[in-house]
């Protein structure tokens, strides 16, 4: 009897936790808007304007339209995108808050990302 009871209790717990899991997923889904893709262009030795309304989970498409190789390197080392001339790359924004970035080859090139949670 005791054995049977333990088994039932465990099954009930599993069902409950599964239900809670489903609930939390269901709750989270409507709150989070679909990730957006924002483009930042590098050209003529400068970064284009930083996108507004950037949220963690969004994607930044870095496009190097310049004739030179450039990077977008976070001061806090949270990202480093190295792009030969004419190339582009996608990056998922992971961290909320302000992040300053620069080009390691041309450190006078600077920008800042403002990311909401």
């Amino acid at each position, binding site marked *: 009897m005791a054995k049977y009871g333990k088994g039932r209790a465990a099954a009930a717990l599993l069902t409950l936790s599964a239900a809670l899991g489903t609930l939390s997923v269901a709750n989270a889904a409507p709150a989070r808007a679909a990730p957006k893709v924002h483009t930042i262009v590098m050209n*003529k*030795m*400068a970064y284009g304007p930083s996108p507004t309304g950037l949220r963690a989970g969004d994607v930044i498409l870095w496009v190097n339209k310049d*004739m*030179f*190789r450039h990077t977008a390197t976070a001061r806090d080392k949270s990202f480093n995108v190295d792009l030969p*001339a004419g190339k582009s790359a996608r990056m998922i924004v992971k961290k909320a808050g302000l992040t300053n970035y620069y080009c390691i*080859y*041309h*450190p*006078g*090139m600077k920008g800042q990302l403002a990311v909401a949670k």
Partner: protein
Amino acid sequence: MIRTVTMALALAGLVSTAAVAQSGAGPTDPQIAHIAYTAGQIDIAAARQALAKSKNRQVRAFAQEMIRDHEAVNKQALALVGKLKVTPEANPTSAGLSKQGEQKLREMARLRGPAFDRAYAQNEVAYHKVVNGALSSTLIPQSDNAELKDLLQTGLRLFQEHQLHAEHLAQNLQGRRSKRK
């Protein structure tokens, strides 16, 4: 000391040659294109010499950057003159630049090791300073074609970055020397 005097003389020569081109009506667009292209080629030659002679990681990375960036500008410059159907025109300023560039390569060939590295970094600071001065005071204001002016302005932003990078490199190499003493 001798090296400093040599550098000062070379710079004075370069500036006076630039002054010759400035006299009269000033350089034409085909002459400006030739001067800018020649200035880039000189820095590429200096970087190739550095790659052949230096074992210092920072110096080699800097030299590779110079080759990559200056080749990119010069490729763009050639594409532009081709598009505009303009033939770059040799002139006293570009001839003076070439002559001094060759002389500097010969001087540098005699140096090796850390002495070469330090001289290369110092020359790169001085050279970019002079070229940036010529770009902002003469070449950009005197260029007529909007696309050429735009390319020269991008070139100036690039070379200003190179000057800062060279200053940083020279300081690092100097710092290493002081620590060793």
